[in-house]
Every structure is written in C-alpha cells, then in structure tokens.
C-alpha cells in the first residue's frame, strides 16, 4: 500500500542523466552504433529486414543534404537515440506499464518482460527511436558467447530502446556506494560515448552544474530536438561550430 506522501511526480526541466552531442565534430563513423550493439546484445536482422525499417539499432546517425551539386553539402550528422524525455509520450500509452519513468534515475525504463507488443509507445515516440523485435532473430553458435550478461536478451514481440546503458549506471553506483561516495562525473560513460573517436558524445549528470555535460550544454548553444513538443528531452545537440 502506497502512502500518498510517497508519491512525488517529477516534472523538473532537467532530468538526472543527460547527453550532449556535438554535431559539428561527429563524423558519422558509426563507432557508437557498433559499440551500442556490442554492449547491449542488440541483434542484427539481415539485409531484407534492415532495408524494410526493421533494424534494431538503438542509435542511428541521421544526415540530410542541402543544395545542388556542386554546392551540395551534407547536413551535420545527427546521432539519434532515445532522448530519455522528462515528459515522455511513450510512457502513458502503454497498457501494461511496460515503459515507465524511473523516479530514481529520471530515465524512461523499458520493462521487457512486461511488454505485450502493442507497439503504441513506438508509435507515439516523436523521435522514432524505439526498436521492436519483429521476429526471433537467430545468432548462430558461437556468437551468443559475446552476450553481455548485464543486459537482458530480448525475444520476439518485445519493444526495446536505448537505456543510457543503465547497467553501467548501476555498476558505477554500486562501486561508489561500496566506497561510500557519490558517483563522480566522467567516472563511467555509455558505450557510445566511450567509443566515439571524436568525443562528439558526452554523457553525465545534467543536474550537476559543474559536470561536463552541463558545462557544454550552457557554454555552447545547445538545442533540444523537437523541444516544441514539450517532451523535455535529456539529450542536447550542438549544431554549429
């Protein structure tokens, strides 16, 4: 039984964990995508399905074109992953509470074993960053030896998405706890940020003004994607130089 005083709905402007992505130096090299796949046991789906919009990427790098040859330019690459919205459209629409807001971490949790596959969340995500397990994709022996034991292996009919490598967050917190301290900024980072050769992805505590993410966010003119929808995303993009 929950006592009313236990209930504190958080609608703060800033969440807890956040990312700053510098599109000016992102080279679109896909290292983050590969790192994410390796860290989070993301399955590959093969040529036909991936071409039909069924790839399971938790992070994708978007790019468009401006102008006509020879004045043609590629717009700055834009890595897109779950924005961990403070006001997330995906959460309320799930009939099974399979995607809920973590009050502790201020993240959008995806509870795989609660998901029944109505796909409403993905439909309602303005960033279209959710990936659904359309089939039971096979990983032939011995590929499954590479599974990260800290990350659930998803099965057919379940929705999944970027978790900000929550398994790493928890590991770091456990370590910090056992050493009786707070998690230090930069003590750990997500797989994508860790791999990024350009350091275009920075991860950290957005609620701590002295953290690197907060610094970057404010020093460089960062923008949030589709901010006008009031989704309070926790990923900030730095467009220009």
């Amino acid at each position, binding site marked *: *039984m929950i006592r009313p005083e236990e209930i504190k709905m958080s609608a703060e402007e800033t969440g807890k964990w956040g990312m700053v992505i510098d599109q000016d130096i992102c080279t679109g090299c896909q290292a983050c995508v590969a790192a994410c796949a390796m860290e989070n046991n993301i399955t590959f789906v093969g040529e036909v399905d991936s071409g039909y919009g069924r790839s399971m990427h938790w992070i994708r790098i978007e790019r468009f074109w401006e102008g006509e040859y020879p004045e043609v330019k590629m717009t700055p690459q834009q890595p897109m992953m779950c924005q961990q919205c403070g006001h997330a459209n995906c959460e309320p629409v799930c009939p099974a*509470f399979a995607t809920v807001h973590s009050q502790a971490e201020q993240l959008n949790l995806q509870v795989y074993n609660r998901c029944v596959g109505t796909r409403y969340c993905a439909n309602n995500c303005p960033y279209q960053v959710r990936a659904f397990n359309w089939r039971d994709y096979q990983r032939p022996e011995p590929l499954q030896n590479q599974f990260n034991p800290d990350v659930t292996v998803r099965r057919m009919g379940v929705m999944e998405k970027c978790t900000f490598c929550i398994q790493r967050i928890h590991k770091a917190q456990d370590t910090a706890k056992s050493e009786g301290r707070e998690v230090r900024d930069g003590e750990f980072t997500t797989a994508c940020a860790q791999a990024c050769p350009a350091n275009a992805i920075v991860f950290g505590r957005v609620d701590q003004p002295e953290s690197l993410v907060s610094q970057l966010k404010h020093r460089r003119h960062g923008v949030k994607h589709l901010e006008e929808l009031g989704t309070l995303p926790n990923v900030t993009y730095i467009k220009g130089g």
Partner: protein
Amino acid sequence: MAEKVDLLAVFPDLEPAANAVERLRALGVHDDRMNVISGVPVTEAMLGRAPQWTNVPRIAMGGAILGFGVGVFLAYIAPFLYPYPIQVSTQGFVPGPPTAVVLFEMTMLGMLLSTFLGVFLESFFPNYRPMKYLPEISDGKIVVFFECAYAEENKITDALKKLGAESVRPAEAQPL
C-alpha cells in the same frame, strides 16, 4: 368448503379477452386468481388489469451503483496498491480525465449486466418445470387462466363462450 378448479379460456383476440377479464371479475373471480398469457406484449391497461409490479429498474440501478464502485476502485484505489508509485510521463499518479472513462464504462457495464440479470430473477428464468401453457399462445391466441369454485365452472364457461372464447377447459401443467 367448496372445491376449486383451474380453467383456461382461449381467445382469438384482445377485445374478447379484455371483456372476459371484466366478466370474470364480475363473476367473483378475484384478479390475482387470473393470469393472462399472450404472444405479444399486451399491457395490463389493455386488459383492464391492475398494473404489474417489476423490480428490473431497481435492480438496474443497484447494478449501476455497484459498477460505479468497481470503477472507483480501479481508478482511485488500485494505484495505491502498486508495489511502488509508478510514474508515466508527468501525468498525475491518479490521472484526471481517464478516470471519467473508467467510471462511465464500469457503471454502464454494471447497469446492463444487472438489468439482464433482473429479468432472470423477476421471471424466475430459467425454469423448465411443467407449466400451464398452450402452444397456440405463440400463434397469437390470448389465454386467460383462472381459478374458480367447482360449482361455478359451467356458469363461467357459458359466460366466456358467449364472450367469444374458442374453448374453455381445465388447465393442466404440461412440459413446455
């Protein structure tokens, strides 16, 4: 101590049946010793009989209240039984407008279910025991079942015959 007999009078139409009811009353057969069975809903008024009492509306109302209660439970109480406060987006722990939907649907469900149930309760459905009945009834005949003193049987029979009864004969319960 006069013996009683159960009789039934078959009428082709509503008019003679109504007259018959009147006549029987005049002949001293009390209203609640009579029962009119018909293939179409002929109202008490048409037959000049006392209005029928039914509890269906009350049962319906009760069901509605019950259903509303279920709605209240689902919307306002169940969330407090969660293992921990579950937050979705920044919507309230107990969302406002959606509760209205739940309350409405549950109320309606309760009301309609109980209405249905009410019919069963009120008319003792299902009931497969032998009963006083004539198959002609569903062909549109109107049958007046009544109980009268043995002594009066012939007199009443004649009277009803005069009023257009196709036949007047003793009524026995039979399997439907």
